[in-house]
Every structure is written in C-alpha cells, then in structure tokens.
C-alpha cells in the first residue's frame, strides 16, 4: 500500500504532518472568503478564493456532476469560523472516490458490498424479547420481501447465530447488479452499506423504495425499541441518530448524483 506524500496533511494547503497518513485535521480556521465552481477538463472544480481545492493526496478536486459540485461548494461555504471536516460528508466521499486510499478496484468493492449480505441486519432476528421479535417481523419482513421480488432472489431470515444461508445465485445477482454502477457510485454504495450495516436496506434506499429517515430507523430498530422501553439519552442516542442520518443521506445523494445523466425530455404537445 503506497503511502501518500507526507506533505499532504490538509485538504488543500501543504502543511506539517504529525498525524496518521490519510487523516485530515479535525478543525482549522476558515481561511477563504468566497467559494465558487468552475468547469475544467476533468469535470467541475471548487475554488476557495483563487485557490483550487485539492484532495488529501494533493490531486486536483474534480467531480463529474455539476449538482454534486454545487453541494460540495455549499458545504465549504456553510463553514463559519472554523472548518469542521467531520460535517463535510460529501467532500469526504469525493476525496475517497478521487484518492481511493484503500486502493480497491471495482471487483473488490462489489465483493465487500455483497459480503455484507451474509450478516445483513434485517436478516438477523432475535427470538426474545417477543415484542422485539414481533417488531422485527413487522418492520423488516416487508423490506426483505421487496428485495426478493425486485431482484428475483431468495434471501430469507434467520434466528441462528450463524445468520441466514444466502444462496450463491442470490449473491451473483447482486454482484452483476452492482457491476452496472460506475466506480464513484460504488464507493458511495459501499459507504451506505457500511453505515446501515445492511445491503438490503441500502438497495432499498438507492432504488428509492424508502426514505433516508426510514432506512436509518430500520437499521436502528433494536436501539429504537430499547429507547422506547428505557428512555432516550440525547447526548448519545440523538447524536448517533443525526450522524447516521447525515452520513446515509450524503452517501445516497452521492450515489444518485454520480450515476444520473440529466436530460430534460420534452413531450410533444398534443392537439
């Protein structure tokens, strides 16, 4: 694994590096007045005053979609006195897509994504307490059924510690479906799967079958059940909830913006 040059610590300016190889500083002062977008050869670029934004590995920050560039620019422009990198999820996703720090190719990304199916949250059921088991059945069964119908596969669910037994044909179907996405979109998909801990919920979200809020709720079903039983702790539960929502929303938006081709089709006026 080749390490990035030690000078590239921040997101755009060269500075001293006393930290891990691919970790930007948590916060630094806002050093720019204006954020703008320009179109270059490779795509859309972000300008902070007169400087062009670069990735942590000092590559030029270019994105294929104008809408995505606008959203990234908004992230940078909404920083007040300090730049809080941990809130800039779209920028982080673009950096990951551009730098590919884990150096995975398309096949490896798809394999990592489909591997999650073996431990998919919505397939792992409890037997007790019965109220939770019932809740899981009522909330998760519909999503599993939807996935089985939409992709014409068998998934099922299991209460065993080993998890569900996913047939090879099911895995192959998902592998070939994911292969239809480009590399950028795949980074986003793998990110969403890692956040939600579920391939099925992620596909359901990306296919626009459920909203982000619903996907996050289903992913945290047991936690929500415990919260309803024992009470909510704002500084932990709500904190995690907001962070998961933000990341999942960013990942989903990223996937859609990277895989769309916007064209306005004009219908012929009928007399």
């Amino acid at each position, binding site marked *: 694994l080749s390490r990035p040059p030690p000078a590239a610590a921040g997101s755009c300016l060269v500075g001293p590096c006393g930290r891990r190889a691919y970790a930007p500083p948590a916060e630094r002062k806002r050093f720019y007045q204006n954020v*703008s*977008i320009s179109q270059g050869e490779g795509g859309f670029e972000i300008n902070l005053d007169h400087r062009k934004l670069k990735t942590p590995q000092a590559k030029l920050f270019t994105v294929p979609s*104008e*809408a995505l560039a*606008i*959203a990234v*620019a*908004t992230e940078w*422009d*909404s920083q007040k006195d300090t730049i*809080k990198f941990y*809130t800039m*999820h*779209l920028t982080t996703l673009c950096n990951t897509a551009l730098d590919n720090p884990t150096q995975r190719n398309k096949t490896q990304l798809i394999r990592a994504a489909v591997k999650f199916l073996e431990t998919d949250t919505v397939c792992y059921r409890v037997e007790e307490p019965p109220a939770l088991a019932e809740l899981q059945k009522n909330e998760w069964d519909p999503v599993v059924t939807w996935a089985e119908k939409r992709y014409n596969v068998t998934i099922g669910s299991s209460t065993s510690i080993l998890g569900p037994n996913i047939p090879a044909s099911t895995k192959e179907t998902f592998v070939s479906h994911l292969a239809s996405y480009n590399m950028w979109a795949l980074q986003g998909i793998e990110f969403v799967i890692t956040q939600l801990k579920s391939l099925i919920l992620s596909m359901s979200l990306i296919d*626009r*079958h*459920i*909203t*982000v*809020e*619903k996907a996050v709720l289903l992913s945290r079903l047991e936690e929500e059940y415990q919260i309803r039983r024992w009470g909510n702790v*704002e*500084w932990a539960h*709500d*904190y995690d909830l*907001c*962070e998961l*929502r*933000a990341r999942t*929303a*960013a990942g*989903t*938006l990223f996937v*859609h*913006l990277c895989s*769309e081709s916007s064209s*306005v*089709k004009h*219908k012929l006026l009928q007399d």
Partner: protein
Amino acid sequence: MEALGAPLRTLRALLRELRHAAGRSYRDSPAYRHVLAAFRAHRVTTEKLCRAQQELHFQAATYLCLLRSVREHEALHREYHGKGERSPQEVARLVGFRLPQQPRGKG
C-alpha cells in the same frame, strides 16, 4: 412515494435549510438557484406519476435530510461534546473546595 409528502413542502424546507447554511446572500448561492431551477423545470408535466419528478423530489428530500441532520448533529456536538475539560479551579468550585495557595517566589 407517499412517505415523501408534498413536493412543495420539501422545497420550502430545503430552501430554509439552505438559508441557515449560507447566511446573508443565500439567494445568490449556487445551491439555492440550482434547487429552484430544478423544481421549476420539472413542474410542467401532464403526467401525475412523472418519473423524473419523483426522482427530483427524492433527491431534494435526501439533500434536505443531509442539511438538517448535519445542523442538528453540530448543535448536539456543541451542546454536549464541545466544551472540553474543566479547569482545576472550576472543578474545585463545583465541589466546594478551595485550592491550596502555592507560595510564590523562590524556595
């Protein structure tokens, strides 16, 4: 998708979030203009189940969720996790102790 509600409601909420994010000149910001333009472009359609309209609405709702969650997360972080450690003086005051006076100067 019924869970999304009315597109107008999503649009209004999204524009409000953008206003929070941008500050003074929010109406000139590229995001504000892009969102408005996109909604206007997709308004004219004779079909009730226009796929492009639904896709746009879903995207808008997702972006709204992103902006809102980031803002709420930051507020929670500031409230609960941003203050750092208390100084020894503050801790002493909390439990009602007095810190010992260290003699100044040499010796």
